[in-house]
Each structure stands twice: as C-alpha cells, then as structure tokens.
C-alpha cells in the first residue's frame, strides 16, 4: 500500500514542482532562445501569440479549473486593448490634440472620457481595474443567480457580439469597424524602432510567464481545490460553508484581468485593435488554443494558444485557400479525441517511464 502512496506522493510532487519547472523551461525558450533565433518579424508574431496566450492562461483557470466556459473573453481582451490603444492614439496625436480619426469621421471634438487616457499611469490602472470591475459586476449578477453551464456560455458569447457591435457602431468614439491603429510610440518608445519592438516582445513574454506563475500558485492553493470542487458539484460546496458564487467570481475576475493585459499588449504589438479582435470568433479562437493545449493543465492553455497563433500564420501562409478547413478540423479533432488537450497525451507517455522505475523499487524493497 505504501508503494501506491509513494507513487501518488511522487505524482503530487511532480504536479507541484513539475509545473514550475515547465514554466522555467518556457521562460527560457521565450526570453532567451526565441529572441536569439527569430527574425524581427517572426519575433513580433510570437509576441502577438503571447498576448493570446496570456488571455488563454486566464481561460485555463476559469474554464479548465472552474468549469465556466468563458466564451466572451474578447470583451475583456478588448477593454484592455482599447484602453491601451486610446493612450497610444493620444500619444501619437500629441498633447492637446485629438486622434486623427475623430477629425476625419466626426466633427473633430473628442469625447471627455478619452481625456484621462493621456496619462499612462491612468491607462495602466484602467487596464487592470476596468475588466476587474466589469467582470465583478457581471459575474456577481450571473453567479449569484446561478446562471451556469450552457446559459453562461451563450450569454458570454452574446456579450462578445454585443460588444463588437457596439464598437462598430461608435465610429466617432472608438474608430468603429476600423478600430484604432497608427500608433507611433509606446510610453515614449518609438514603435517603429526594431530595438523597441524587441523590448515590447520581452515585456509580453515576461508578462506571460508572470501570469503562469500566478495561476500555478492559485492551482495548488486551497482556492484551486475549491474551484475544482465548485466545478464538479457547485451546490455541494455551499455545504462546506462557502458561497460558490464568490469562488467562481474570483476566477472569473482573474481571467478577465489576464485577458485585458493580453489585449493591452496586443494593441502596440499588432499595431491595431479592432472589433474583429474582440468579437465572437476572436473569443472562440482564444478558447481553441486552451482546448488544444489542455484546459485543466497549467501550461496547456498557454502552449495551445501559442500553437494556434503559429498555426494560423503558418497554415494560412502555406494554404491560403484551404486553411479554414484545418482550423475547423482542429476544433473537431481536438475536442472529440483529446478532450483534455495535448497536455493529456504528453504526460501519459512521460508517466510511463517513471512509473516503471517506482514499481521496480517497490519490488526490490
């Protein structure tokens, strides 16, 4: 029996520190190897995938661990992205000036709520606090009223659609369908300078690693266990003395903030944020990476998002006319055959080796 316990013990050990080791490996790859190995353009693309990966890490927490199919993360991605873009737009316009598109499409006056975004500090605050507040209000209402499962998913998706539609309809305020682009500097750094582009990449990669560490910690905390408990038997959690709504709310808010950070970095790296980056299909593509990598695993969502981002670029380069089929097939194959994502395949192969080791030890003891 003790052998079994030991196996379980090592497994637990592996789960804990293996996660951190994985994060360290990824950090090594993203922060040291990639900058050395990739061209400016490819590195920029990788940076963009990192933005999605940051959002994906949050989705892993909310969906994989918490069972909330957050199909509307584009909304939070967009809040962060547009907040940052507004700041960048105002920087490009210069002090006292109005962003170019307002003069073109509107009467050249700026809505008052744009004004504070001239401040970088205010913008950074908004990027964190606004999605947190929106998620808290929305989540509070939704979770307290016990809206969940498919209702939650569909509602989220509808929110993403409504958000994108709202953006499209408010041309003078948000640039409408075109979105916001033509930025020149990022907190004073020229965005066209390759050195600064690399710096931007390093920032986003570091943020991704930081988010992974946070989720790693949350997963192994008691909160992480409670979250899984809530996912599996929400009502039962009440009889442990917790309000499951609060537990879900925390995960939802964390996921929202991460999506927002991803969006905020997306704007300067991609050079644009527009409704099509935040709408229903963009939100679904965020989920796709998480599903591919493994929703409930630590690194799965991030790696999956990187892979989907890369796959999108690579496949559409090689098969510009057929790659939608690949995209569709990806969803079908992964969800149908690998519900726990690629993360479930690798450890299974991996686990086959150490387990034999333990068994032998047990025999000799």
């Amino acid at each position, binding site marked *: 029996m003790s052998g079994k316990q030991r196996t379980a013990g090592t497994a637990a050990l592996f789960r804990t520190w293996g996660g951190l080791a994985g994060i360290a490996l990824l950090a090594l790859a993203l922060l040291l190897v990639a900058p050395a190995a990739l061209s400016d353009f490819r590195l920029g693309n990788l940076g963009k995938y990192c933005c999605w990966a940051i959002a994906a890490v949050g989705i892993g927490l909310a969906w994989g661990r918490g069972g909330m199919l957050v199909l509307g993360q584009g909304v939070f991605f967009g809040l962060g992205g547009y907040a940052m873009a507004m700041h960048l737009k105002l920087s490009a316009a210069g002090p006292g000036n109005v962003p170019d598109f307002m003069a073109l499409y509107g009467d050249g006056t700026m809505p008052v709520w744009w004004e504070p975004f001239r401040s970088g500090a205010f913008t950074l605050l908004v990027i964190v606090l606004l999605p947190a507040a929106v998620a808290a209000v929305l989540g509070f209402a939704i979770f307290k009223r016990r809206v969940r499962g498919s209702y939650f998913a569909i509602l989220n998706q509808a929110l993403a659609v409504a958000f994108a539609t709202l953006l499209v*309809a408010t041309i003078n305020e948000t640039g409408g369908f075109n979105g916001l682009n033509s930025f020149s500097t990022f907190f004073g750094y020229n965005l*066209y300078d390759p*050195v600064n582009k*690399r710096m931007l990449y390093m920032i986003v990669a570091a943020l991704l690693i930081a988010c992974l560490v946070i989720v790693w910690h949350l997963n192994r905390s008691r909160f992480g266990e409670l979250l899984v408990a809530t996912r599996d038997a929400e009502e039962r959690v009440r009889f442990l003395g917790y309000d499951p709504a609060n537990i879900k709310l925390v995960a939802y808010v964390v996921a929202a903030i991460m999506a927002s950070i991803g969006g905020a970095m997306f704007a300067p790296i991609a050079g644009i*944020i527009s409704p099509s980056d935040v709408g229903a299909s963009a939100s679904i593509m965020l989920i796709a990476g998480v599903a591919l990598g493994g929703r409930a695993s630590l690194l799965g969502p991030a790696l999956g998002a990187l892979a989907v981002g890369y796959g999108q670029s690579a496949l559409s380069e090689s098969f510009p006319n057929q790659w939608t089929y690949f995209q569709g097939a990806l969803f079908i194959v992964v969800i149908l055959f690998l519900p726990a994502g690629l993360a479930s395949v690798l450890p299974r192969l991996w686990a086959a080796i150490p387990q034999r080791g333990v068994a032998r030890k047990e025999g000799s003891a």
Partner: protein
Amino acid sequence: GSKSSDGDVESASAGAASCVDTSGDTIKLGFLNSTSGAMAISEQTVRDSLLLAAEEINADGGILGKQIEPVEEDGASDPAVFAEKIGKLLTSDCVAAVFGGWTSASRKAMLPVVEGANGLLYYPVQYEGLEASKNIYYTGATTNQQIIPAMDFLASKGVKTLFLAGSDYVFPRTANKIIKQYAEELGIEIVGEEYVPLDSDDWSTQVAKIVAAKPDFVFNTINGSSNVGFIKAYYEQGLGPDSSPIISVSIAEEEAPAMGKDVTGQFAAWNYFQSVDSPDNAAFIKAFQAKYGADRPTSDPMEAAYTSLYLYKNTVEKAKSFDVEDVNDASDGVSFDAPEGTVTINGENHHIAKTGLIGQINSDNQFDVVWSSEEPIEPDPFLESYDWWDSSAE
C-alpha cells in the same frame, strides 16, 4: 530600448532598409486578399484579376524583364491579420510591392505597417477618401470620383429628396457625411438616414421608413450580402425603380444577379462597367473569361486591381528601378490604357484620375451607362477643391 524624444515616425521609417532582392530574373509581389471570412465573397475576385494581370505581364516579358513571382496571402477578413501579413510580405518575403485590401479597415490597418517598412501597397477599391500615404497607391475611386458624380447625376435628374441607407461602418458613414453636405449645396433634402450592421439581413424596419418618407431616390452605401436583405425588403414593401429608385455604390455585375429580385432599372455609380465599350475592355473581358469561365462577370474593383498591377509595371519601367523612392519619384503622370479608359497617376496624392460613370441595370444584369463625367476626374481625396466641404461639421 531606445527612447525617441519626439516620437517621430518618419525618421524611423526612412531608415528602414529594403530587403527586396532584384538580382534574379524574377521579382516577388505580394497579393494580399481575404480568401476566408466574410469578405472573401468580394476579395476573391480581386485575387483572380491580379493573377490574370500577372500572367499577362509575365507572358509579355515581365517587369523590367523580370518574371512576377506572386506571393499569396490570406487577410482572413481581419484587419489585424492584414497588418501581420503585409508585415510578413514586406519584411520577411521581401516583396517589391503588395496588392490588395478591400475594406477601409484593412487598409487603415496596413497603412502604418507599410509606412513603417517603407514599402508599397496598391489598393484597388473605392473608398471614403480623406487619406493619402506616400506608400500607398489608390486605384479605386475616392469620393469625388464616385459619390460626388452620383450626386451630380441625381441633381441632373431633378431629385429633391434623398434617403440614405448604409452598412454601419466607416465608409458609409463618411460617404453620407459628404453626401449630406453636398446635398445641402445642391438643394436636395435628406429625408432619412439608416444604418444596419454589416452582417445583418433584416432591413424591414428601415425600409418601412423609406416607404413612409417616399424619397425621390435612395442612396445605397450597403456593403456585402446585407444588400440582398435590403433589396428584398425594398421590393416586398412595394417600392421599385418607378417610385423610389436606388443608386448604389457597391452593387456591381457580380452582385446584381444575386439579389433574387429583378433589379432592372436601378442605378449604380462606378468608374467601370463590364459594358464599357472599348477594345481594351473587350480584351480584358475576353482574357478574364478565358481564364475563369465565360459566366464570370467583370466589375469595377476587379478592373481596378488589374489596372493597379499594370500601373505598377509602367511606373517601375519608367523609374527603371524597383526601389520605393524611385517608384514614387517616377509615378506622376504614369498612365495605362485600362479597360475603363486611360488612367493616370497623380504623383501628389497617389490616386488616379478616373471617369465617373452611372449605370442603369438592364434585364441581363449588365449596366447601361446613362451618365458619364465626360472626362477623367482628377482625384481629390481631401475634397480641397470643394468649398462646401467642412470636415469638422457633424
């Protein structure tokens, strides 16, 4: 990172070194259109005519003796993807120029990238104007070559009341802003203005308002498949070319037969129709249909794309160089005997002079030209020569 004190973009872009390889006997050109997503409907046709033009030019000896090697990319109807892909084409594939884009959103997304990389983009679609970049050539109409001629046509028909119906995005909104100011100048009353999201089919409520307003004309700036819902509702509620005829700026030969209604008698404003009677157009149609099938119509954006590649060839050959600065220096006055007629590049704003045409749909879903601007209209993207225009008025 290196911090610039003034955030000057120009200085950085000027320094970007070109990686275009002109040493071989081929030259790479990027074709960037959406072959997936909602816009694939339209953009695929542009891709087709670009490939046709490349084939013809290659058969004719290429550009400066170099064979065109097209690098195709999918913009996926997503502005961010357009931004990424044009970056890839210019800095990774090192193409000499990129051809493509359709929606203004895609063009706006590509603009900073093409400027940053100091590359070239040839954009083939009519658009809302108010833009000029030294790195972009606009071979579709700007507003004074399509919207304003359409208004002139309406004025010539004695139209007194006009209803505006458009998709809810930048082009229709800006177009209508111009229309409203010019209408005031012309003494035409705007009796309604309605927008519907790009992907919406449901126009019934808005059309009811048209029925109520009984306008002399409807100015249609709806884009894409939303037109079908509009046209169906329009006819269902008893409207027709006899009561409140429509003038459209994005219904062309491809779209007209797809409406499911007999749209004979309705109007459209373009710079090219398949029905344009000229040897150059006959040759274009013949080549196009030989390559893609006799049932395939030609249309304005396709023609503008086809023309853009030839204009590029002519400019490069005049400059005797693929270098962006050389091309820009040589571009003024470069012309091409396009299917729509002879077009000439304006070196100042990088648009081209185009003839404004109004066509009326006949029973074959072709357009009979009923009005023409007589001569090519010089492009004026910022409407500087129109004193009724006040960009800051709402």
